[in-house]
């Protein structure tokens, strides 16, 4: 029997944007197992949210994740609105979709840049992140923050997008599309990218279902799962086709995300085109009471919020199941059998967001 060696990967590692440790069990250069250990950045946000009133919590919850922040606040607000029977004005719903899909675009671009960086394609990384600036700029202009938008609130949104900025949003969509058309072929057709991603970290459909993975990881393994088809919020007016791939390797996961970039652009455009006139915010009276589960499709998959109110302005309990938490068991199934040098690429291919996972 070959001698087994255990080497620690992380918590500090050049490819890891956030700390997670995997103890890799090696036989020569082959990885035969991985033991995860998380808990480096636990911040106790769920407990803290119970000590803030339900409106203050929105700003806290937005900070659960530094990438898909708006979608966290959206999931939370949807839950509270359901508990309080608040009907959100249609304009607010559409505005939420605009910001949510812009968040998806910026998140996928961030991930794509990191992936390029993980296999040493520095210039592609810079090209992609330059493109990401365009999205961040338009978010800053419309919402007032680059990533922490702080615009979602119970009963609607806190800001409107005026017509002149709507025009700018559309212009940005066109600009982004031109950027995508420029660099996406070099990602998907590039010889070196394919060498590093095709057939690497395969997750079969059976294992994906068994381990309960979500989001692009599940879709790349052929599992038709996208919570946007459940038509929450303004998604009720649009048809979202889940982007499916069958191969389940890193390349398939990249393809799914690339196609979602175009899909998100489309959704922003549709949402702008059907933007109803009217108010974007309604005043909310009373306090949440009852129990609710709210789900939203984030860039990394489906996030689940469990909220329990007691009729006071403080929540009894708030619990978050983030998509990366669901994808980690899937990651552990992808790693055995790969080479040591493939581990960074595989880890990045699930687009890990450890801060969300540990909250």
């Amino acid at each position, binding site marked *: 029997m070959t001698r087994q060696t255990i080497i620690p990967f992380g918590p500090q590692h050049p490819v890891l944007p956030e700390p997670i440790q995997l103890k890799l069990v090696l036989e020569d250069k082959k990885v035969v197992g991985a033991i995860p250990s998380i808990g480096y950045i636990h911040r106790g946000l769920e407990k803290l949210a119970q000590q*803030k009133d339900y*409106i*203050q*919590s929105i*700003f*806290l919850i937005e*900070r659960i994740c530094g990438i898909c922040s708006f979608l966290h606040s959206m999931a939370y607000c949807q839950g509270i609105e359901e508990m309080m029977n608040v009907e959100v004005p249609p304009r607010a719903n559409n505005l939420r979709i605009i910001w949510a899909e812009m968040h998806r675009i910026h998140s996928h671009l961030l991930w794509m840049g990191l992936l390029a960086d993980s296999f040493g394609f520095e210039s592609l990384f810079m090209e992609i992140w*330059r493109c990401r*600036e365009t999205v961040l*700029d338009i978010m*800053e*202009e*419309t*919402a*007032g*923050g680059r990533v*922490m938008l*702080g615009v979602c609130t119970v009963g609607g949104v*806190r*800001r409107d997008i005026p017509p002149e900025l709507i025009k700018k949003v559309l212009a940005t969509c066109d600009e982004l599309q031109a950027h995508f058309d420029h660099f996406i072929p070099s990602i998907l057709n590039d*010889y070196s990218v394919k060498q590093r991603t095709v057939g690497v970290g395969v997750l079969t459909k059976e294992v994906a279902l068994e381990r309960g993975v979500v989001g692009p990881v599940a879709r790349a393994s052929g599992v038709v799962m996208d919570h946007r088809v459940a038509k929450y919020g303004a998604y009720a007016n649009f048809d979202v086709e889940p982007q499916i791939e069958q191969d389940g390797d890193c390349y398939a996961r990249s393809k799914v995300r690339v196609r979602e970039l175009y899909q998100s652009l489309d959704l922003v455009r549709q949402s702008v085109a059907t933007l109803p006139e009217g108010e974007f915010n309604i005043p909310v009276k009373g306090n949440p009471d009852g129990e609710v589960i709210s789900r939203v499709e984030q860039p990394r998959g489906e996030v689940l919020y469990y909220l329990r109110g007691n009729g006071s302005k403080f929540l009894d309990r708030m619990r978050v199941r983030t998509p990366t938490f669901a994808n980690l068991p899937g990651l552990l199934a992808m790693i055995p059998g790969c080479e040591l040098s493939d581990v960074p690429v595989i880890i990045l291919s699930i687009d890990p967001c450890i801060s969300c996972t540990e909250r």
Partner: protein
Amino acid sequence: MPPAYCLMPIMFTFVRTLFRNLSRKPATRTYPFTQREPFANFRGHLTIDPAVCIYCGICAKRCPANALVVAKSPKSWTLDPYKCILCSYCVEACPKKCMTMRPEHQRKDA
């Protein structure tokens, strides 16, 4: 390795990209010497007009980050800029509308 004629299109892309990059301005700015105009809606830093404030303390009660401390006597309104998360919730809550969110970052010399 693909045969040489297959590389021709790649070469063309490469040359085109090269010339485009040579003729293009850099994507970055030499911050802090060149600064972009701030967007009008940006939440940059919080200021108060003490002449209008009635020291009611509503802003301090609403602040999710406990960044504000307001006292009635002696009259004081204190912001801890390191705690403030620039959410603008206090600005909306103030009955006198005496706070403003400025679009530029607070600078040392400002």
